[in-house]
Each structure stands twice: as structure tokens, then as C-alpha cells.
């Protein structure tokens, strides 16, 4: 009879109500304010769906076994089938100790009765949870299955990188390879946030996942977190996507603080060197070989990005390039964003740690911006033809939002300026830099 007379109301609590408001706010921002609608609308709806209790979309089944290591007798059952339980609640009392719930959830099935003898490792109960846990769970909901086999198996984020590769024009970076330095400098934000996270008490794996938010690449953040700290994947992913949408608000004050009006008005000639098609074809091949040899763990991201780019540049695989740029990335985005929204149950999200993740995320974005600008100023000490230091801010990736911010600010400071293409160089270099930083973290901790 499990579930027959249950409605969602009985399991609904204020946390769910708050999450419905957050989900609703994301949908509102997406639809009304047109802020990253392709991301915020499905993420918001995923949050909505998962916070309507007992829908089962993000359920995992977890077997509770006799972990005492000895054959022992059941003294009493402390729960009934269908009961909701919290972390460390007692499920049953054994002769040799108690069996506790390792995560919150509800009891699906109790397989033993009082007085029965249980062997070591024998399954005594089965529970259902929506928690992201490293324990061996089996996904049993629509979205938890997609999440487990798409994201936790690291399939969807690298495939999104393939599509991003197909969409990216590395031309501005090839035309002006100095901009690679700016993309690399902005990764300072990743490492700064990583150390700050360690100081705040996060463990090494979590700190890496928080630091990578500063790479400002959603799929990279999700990829790294899914491997290192799946328990915080919802927070890091949403922090990353939210701050990418907020780049036009986060970056300008930092840029203004670190540059003078005169520096912001520095004029850069719009015409970049013409990049030949051969260069564009050779780049993804050579970049893959070099980057993967140096940072092997970045292979899934860099390899996919570069093959996607080659589909576009080689000129003979237009069908593949077109599919990657349109239908394929849309399908992957639907899966990814719905699942990410669905990891944000009230119990997962409403913790003080989530607030810290968001705080450290903005620190990562801010320091990345600052590092890019300061590197550009440093380069200007040696360059005869000065660069506008604002283009360093585009090194944080967040393609193409941060390049757009630089373009708008550049025009405001000097109407003659058109910095978009100059900023696209560090911008795409930042995307590569973020994937490399992710690979370094995985090599370090994974």
C-alpha cells in the first residue's frame, strides 16, 4: 500500500516552499529579464519539480546492510515502511549495536523482523533518498537516471564541450597569441578560491570543485565536481551559471577599480591579422596534442572541444558542425540543466555550506577578473603598442559575456574603440585555461 494514500502535502516543509520561490525566481529572471533563459528556465523548473515531495524524479535506492561485521540478532525495528528518516536516525537495533541511516530519506522496505538472525553484509532494509551521496546507490527516478548515467558517468559535460568547440572561433586568439597569457592569468581566481575554500574548512576535493567555479565554464565545473565532490554539484553548478549571468554586474566595478579612465580609453586598432583556414585547422590538432600531453586529465574536455572545433574549421564536416552547434547542444543542455536543477532539493541546498560555496564563487569570479586586468597592465610595461587592460577581464571565460562587457565599457570610455574581437582572444583562451585547471585538479586529487 506504500504511497497509495500519500499526497505531497504531508512531506512538504518550509524548505520546499523556499526552494519553489528560488526556482520561480530563476524562471522569472530567464523569461522576463532574458537572463540566460536557455539555462535558467530549465534549471528553475528542475528545482520546482524536485521540491514537490514524493514525485520520485530524483530518487535513489540505497540498501542498508548489516555493517557490524558479525552475525547478530535483531532486537527491535525502529522504523516502519514509508517512514521518513533523517541522517543517523536508528533504523534497527541489533544485539551487537545499532544500524543508522547514512543519509536522509524514507524507508521503502524492511527485510528483517525482530528476533531474526542477520549475517554480516546482509541487506536489512532498503531506503529511498534524494541526497547526492558517494554511497553505492541505484538511480530509480527519471532525472536521477539521466543524472547518474549522463553526468556522474561524465558523458554530458564533455559532449557539451564538443558543441562549444564547434561554436568557438579561435581566430582572435591565433591572431594574437599574447592573449593566451591573459586567459592563463585569469585562472588565478580558480586557485585563489581553492585556497580560500580550504581555509573555510572544505576538504581538498570540495575546494577544487569550488575553485573551478572561477573558470566560469558550466560544463567544466560540473565535470570536476561530479568526479571530486558530487555532494555539492548542485551548488557549484548553479553558482557558476548564476555568476556567468551576472558577469555584467560583477566585472565592471572591479575593472573600474583597477584601471584609470585613461587606461580604459586606450585605443586598439580593430583589424586583427587575417587568420588562414590552414591555421584554424591545424590549431585544434596541435592544441590537443600539446595540452593533453602536459595535462592528461584534461583530455575528455580539451579533446572533445578540439574535435568539435575541427568539425567547424575543416570545411568538410559541415553537417556534424551544424548538428553540434544546434540540435545536439540543445538536447544536452536540456538534460544537463534539468538534472542540475533537480539536485537542488531543500535538504541538499539549504545548508550554511551552500551559502559559502556561493560566496567563494563570487570571490573566484572577482579575483579572476582582477588577475586578468593586472596581467594586461603588466604586459603593457613591456609592449610598445599598448593593449587596453580591460581585455584581461575577458580571460575569465564566460564566453562571450565577459568579452561583451569589455566591448561595452571600452566604447563608453572611448567611442572609437571596438574591443570585441580583442577581448574574444583572452575569452576563448580562458575557456581552454579553465579546462586545463580542471584537469590539473583532477590529476591532483582524482
Amino acid at each position, binding site marked *: 500500500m506504500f504511497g497509495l494514500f500519500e499526497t505531497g502535502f504531508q512531506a512538504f516543509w518550509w524548505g520546499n516552499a523556499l526552494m519553489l520561490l528560488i526556482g520561480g525566481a530563476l524562471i522569472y529572471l530567464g523569461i522576463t529579464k532574458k537572463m540566460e533563459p536557455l539555462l535558467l528556465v530549465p534549471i528553475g523548473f528542475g528545482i520546482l519539480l524536485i521540491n514537490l515531495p514524493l514525485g520520485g524524479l530524483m530518487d535513489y535506492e540505497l540498501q542498508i546492510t548489516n555493517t557490524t561485521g558479525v552475525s547478530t540478532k535483531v532486537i527491535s525495528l525502529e522504523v516502519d515502511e514509508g517512514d521518513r528518516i533523517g541522517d543517523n536516525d536508528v533504523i534497527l537495533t541489533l544485539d551487537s549495536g545499532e544500524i543508522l541511516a547514512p543519509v536522509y530519506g524514507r524507508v521503502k522496505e524492511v527485510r528483517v523482523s525482530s528476533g531474526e538472525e542477520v549475517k554480516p553484509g546482509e541487506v536489512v532494509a532498503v531506503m529511498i533518498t534524494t541526497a547526492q551521496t558517494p554511497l553505492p546507490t541505484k538511480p530509480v527516478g527519471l532525472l536521477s537516471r539521466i543524472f547518474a548515467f549522463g553526468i556522474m558517468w561524465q558523458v554530458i559535460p564533455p559532449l557539451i564541450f564538443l558543441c562549444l568547440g564547434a561554436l568557438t572561433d579561435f581566430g582572435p586568439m591565433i591572431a594574437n597569441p599574447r592573449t593566451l597569457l591573459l586567459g592563463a592569468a585569469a585562472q588565478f581566481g580558480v586557485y585563489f578560491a581553492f585556497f580560500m575554500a580550504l581555509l573555510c574548512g572544505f576538504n581538498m576535493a570540495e575546494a577544487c570543485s569550488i575553485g573551478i567555479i572561477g573558470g566560469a565554464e558550466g560544463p567544466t565545473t560540473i565535470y570536476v565536481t561530479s568526479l571530486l565532490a558530487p555532494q555539492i554539484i548542485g551548488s557549484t553548478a548553479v553558482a557558476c551559471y548564476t555568476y556567468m549571468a551576472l558577469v555584467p554586474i560583477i566585472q565592471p566595478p572591479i575593472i573600474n577599480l583597477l584601471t584609470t579612465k585613461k587606461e580604459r580609453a586606450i585605443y586598439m586598432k*580593430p*583589424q586583427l591579422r587575417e587568420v588562414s583556414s590552414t591555421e584554424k585547422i591545424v590549431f585544434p590538432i596541435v592544441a590537443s596534442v600539446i595540452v593533453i600531453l602536459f595535462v592528461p586529465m584534461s583530455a575528455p574536455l580539451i579533446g572533445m572541444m578540439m574535435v568539435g572545433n575541427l568539425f567547424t574549421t575543416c570545411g568538410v564536416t559541415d553537417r556534424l558542425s551544424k548538428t553540434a552547434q544546434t540540435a545536439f547542444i540543445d538536447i544536452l543542455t536540456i538534460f544537463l540543466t534539468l538534472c542540475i536543477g533537480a539536485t537542488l532539493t531543500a535538504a541538499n541546498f539549504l545548508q550554511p555550506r551552500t551559502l559559502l560555496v556561493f560566496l567563494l564563487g563570487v570571490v573566484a569570479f572577482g579575483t579572476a577578473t582582477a588577475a586578468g586586468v593586472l596581467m594586461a597592465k603588466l604586459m603593457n610595461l613591456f609592449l610598445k603598442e599598448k593593449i587596453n587592460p580591460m581585455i584581461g577581464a575577458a580571460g575569465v571565460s564566460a564566453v*562571450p559575456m565577459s568579452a*561583451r562587457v569589455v566591448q561595452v565599457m571600452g566604447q563608453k570610455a572611448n*567611442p572609437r574603440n*571596438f574591443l*570585441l*574581437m580583442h577581448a574574444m582572444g583572452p575569452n576563448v583562451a580562458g575557456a581552454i585555461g579553465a579546462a586545463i585547471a580542471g584537469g590539473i585538479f583532477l590529476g591532483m586529487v582524482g
Partner: protein
Amino acid sequence: MAQEVIEVPITGKIISVNFKSGDAVKEGDILCLLESMKMENPILAPVDGTITQLEIATEQVVKPGEIIAIIDY
């Protein structure tokens, strides 16, 4: 009288033109919108003056270096 030549900075398509030849413009006025890289990019007047030549029209595909307008000031 000095002349300012405004050139196309990036390949794209002109999606709107806000002035015509002979119009007076102020520094920072949006002369036209250029769609490129899936973004709408405003092209601004760099000086106060009068447009003496306007070489573009809506829907026109433009390449870097082509003239958008000449402003006398």
C-alpha cells in the same frame, strides 16, 4: 574642417541605421547597429559633427575596413 572616418570593425550585418546623410550627431550617438557573433553591437559617433557620407543600409553585410560614415567636425 576635420573629418572622421568610421570604418566597419568586424564582419557582420547592419540591422538598423539611425541617421541619414546631413544629420548632426553628438559624440556617443549610436549611428547603427551591427549584428556580429550573435550580438548586436552599436557603432558610436566618436565626435560631435555632421554626417557628410553614409555608406551603409539596413540588412547590408559588411566587412572590416569598409566605410560606415564620414563625419565633418
